[in-house]
């Protein structure tokens, strides 16, 4: 190992290190640190406020999503209920509707004055059964 190799493993001289330390020191020396701390804490306060708003914003977003889901569910439920009501009403009406007399098509000559009551009754039952 030659001299140069040995020297590469050696730290720099104290004068060089002290000068480098001074070059890399902040302006104002020790008076600088309270200022830096104040600036950092001011950013932290802003960040904490921003964080609070983010949390509240998150809640608001959650609330809005829940409300939207609730509204959609309510509207769908209402439509389903209406459709069901409609179905029930149609079924009820179709079950209770009196068939108008003119809608019954009686084959021509099925009933005549000559037919007796039994014949007319049998014909009527036959029509109804169709």
């Amino acid at each position, binding site marked *: 190992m030659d001299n140069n190799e040995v020297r590469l493993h050696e730290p720099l001289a104290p004068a060089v290190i002290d*000068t480098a330390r001074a070059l890399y020191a902040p302006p104002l020396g020790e008076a600088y640190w309270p200022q830096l701390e104040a600036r950092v804490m001011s950013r*932290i306060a802003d960040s904490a406020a921003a964080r609070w708003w983010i949390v509240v914003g998150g809640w608001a977003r959650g609330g809005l999503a829940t409300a939207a889901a609730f509204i959609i569910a309510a509207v769908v439920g209402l439509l389903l209920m209406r459709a069901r009501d409609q179905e029930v009403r149609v079924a009820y009406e179709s079950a209770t509707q009196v068939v108008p007399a003119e809608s019954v098509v009686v084959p021509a000559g099925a009933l005549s004055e000559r037919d007796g009551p039994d014949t007319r009754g049998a014909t009527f039952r036959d029509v109804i059964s169709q």
Partner: protein
Amino acid sequence: MHSPRRAERDPPPRRCNFLTCNRPQRVSDPPRNLPDERALTAAAQKGDQAAFGALVRLHQKRAYAVARAIVTVHEDAEDAVQEAFVRAYQALDRFNLEQAFGPWLNRIVANAALDLARRRKVRTTDDLHESMAGTFRDPGESDELRRRLSEALMKIPERMRSVLVLHDVEGFAHAEIGKLLGIPEGTARSDLHHARQRLRGMLQNLRDQE
């Protein structure tokens, strides 16, 4: 009570010149993870801003040193430190109280500084020199050494300079530097040697100091 004799009290005199010295120079150790610090971190995790303020006070010098070693310019270092503390505050709920706060914070600082350095690649040598010229001055410092060292540091490639400053000026170990800069420990070691070699070459003709 007898005071020890001077020979026992004082370290042996060192044989140094401007470029080498046989004793490693270290700044004061970084703050250790004291029980108080853990309590402060736990309180900060629960949203106590005063506790976080105390952590800022404990670690800001070290954080600034890490940032400054990477970005060089004072204003950028300050921006990086502020950004890092905000990121640390926001990530506190993910911090494991069993680990030390300092190294965790320093990695965040280094990342913030590296991000900033990538964004501001266009800094000119003049900007850097100006920033260094405006730093705090020790009245006893040699003007010539200061000027020559400032110029020499600007001529060393960025990463090598960061490694040199973090190791020789701030006292970080190679492994820590590797983690901070995202490079293997061996690379940090080799960067340091190359940086020292270049710096010594550039300061070669300064007068020897006894």
